[in-house]
């Protein structure tokens, strides 16, 4: 249970940091696979997460935050919620897919904050969580807007006529 502000901020910082790092990782992966459009999008998402991270860090200035091992966090699930899962990407994915994946992760982030905002006994934490939740909500709306520009690709989006390569 998250009850104190330091506890909450420790979670928020990790959530945003891991989110940013994951977006960067995915961007790197797609860069190696020459999927420029998606790289750009993921970089952008990483940027937004980093802005959030900075906010959370600002809020934590002067506080001593508890240390959690990665597996000790009180996430709804075992993993940090606003992190796109590794296997949600594909080298042929389109911006549409990237936006969907990003949106889902933001939704999980939002749900996490919203839950704390509604259940945490500590009012200060509640307020902070609500604020974070609202920002996530904004992101989700933003992503929905973008998505309009990137309608679902045809059913053959993953098609690659070239066979996989044997590299060793």
């Amino acid at each position, binding site marked *: 249970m998250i009850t104190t502000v330091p506890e909450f901020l420790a979670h928020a910082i990790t959530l945003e940091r891991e989110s940013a790092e994951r977006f960067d990782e995915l961007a790197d992966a797609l860069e190696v696979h020459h*999927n420029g459009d998606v790289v750009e999008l993921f970089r952008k998402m990483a940027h937004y997460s980093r802005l959030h991270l900075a906010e959370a860090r600002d809020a934590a200035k002067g506080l001593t935050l508890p*240390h959690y091992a*990665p597996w000790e966090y009180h996430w709804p699930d*075992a*993993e940090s919620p606003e992190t796109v899962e*590794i296997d949600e990407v594909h080298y042929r994915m389109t911006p549409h897919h990237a936006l969907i994946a990003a949106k889902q992760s933001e939704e999980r982030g939002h749900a996490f904050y919203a839950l704390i905002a509604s259940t945490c006994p500590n009012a200060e934490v509640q307020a902070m969580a609500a604020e974070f939740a609202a920002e996530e909500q904004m992101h989700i709306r933003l992503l929905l807007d973008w998505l309009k520009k990137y309608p679902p690709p045809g059913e053959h989006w993953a098609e690659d006529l070239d066979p*996989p390569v044997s590299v*060793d």
Partner: protein
Amino acid sequence: MNTIPCDVTAEPTYSANDYKSQIKPVWCPGCGDYSVLSALTKALSELQLPPEQVALVSGIGCSSRLPAYTSLYGFHSIHGRALPVATGLKAARPDLTVLVAGGDGDGFSIGGNHFLHACRRNIDMTYIVMDNAVYGMTKGQASPTTAPDWTGSKLTPEGTGIEAIHPLEIALSAGANFIARTFAGQPNHVAQMICEGICAPGFSLIQVLSPCVTFRPEQRGYKEQVHQDWSTPVTDRKEAFLRLLDDDGFATGVLYRGNHRPFHPAPDDTLSIADLEKRFAL
């Protein structure tokens, strides 16, 4: 056993990112190995091991590409020989934390003998096997953990017709002191297992179910199959065997945490070479 205490509470000097190199993985986007890399760096950060005190040895395969993606001392050796390289390193340099990483083909097919004997030797190191039940790097052939009826390989178009091996049983039988299974889709659990493996004395085996999205796309479904049944480790070999006899291959957690003495060569440093030469004198 690692000399660094596992419950570091001080302000971390090394973040997970400090354990990454600048080199971008060539893995297929979506590959489970990404998540093992990320879990490994988290685990090391948790242990606050200085990167230069850790060596990561691997063989050949997609998974074996891991070392170059870290900021550790790495040895990307040859197919199947990661464990001997690591054994020599640890025996010669007991002060280092030695990790080994690789695939199911590398570790259980061509490297099967070293696997058996590394477990048996129970030298203090941690072996992370990214098991995708396939040879990813050579275009998708069956590995020792592939089910007999998998027809996805051109080498065995009718399926292999032979049962998969049970690496954890073999590790347990041969004498590995810490045995765990985890799933790449749960990087924090992977990190935890790696952390515990490093802290456990002797040989630690961590089987990571790590989907190959290219040749075994159906492995994306592992998510639904894994179940964290082994939440408390057992310390009794027999009990651990019983667990395995009911295993469906998807139970995760620490199977076994034993009490075998790790192999530890003990140089005595008592004589000089001149002393030895004297023995040849008439």
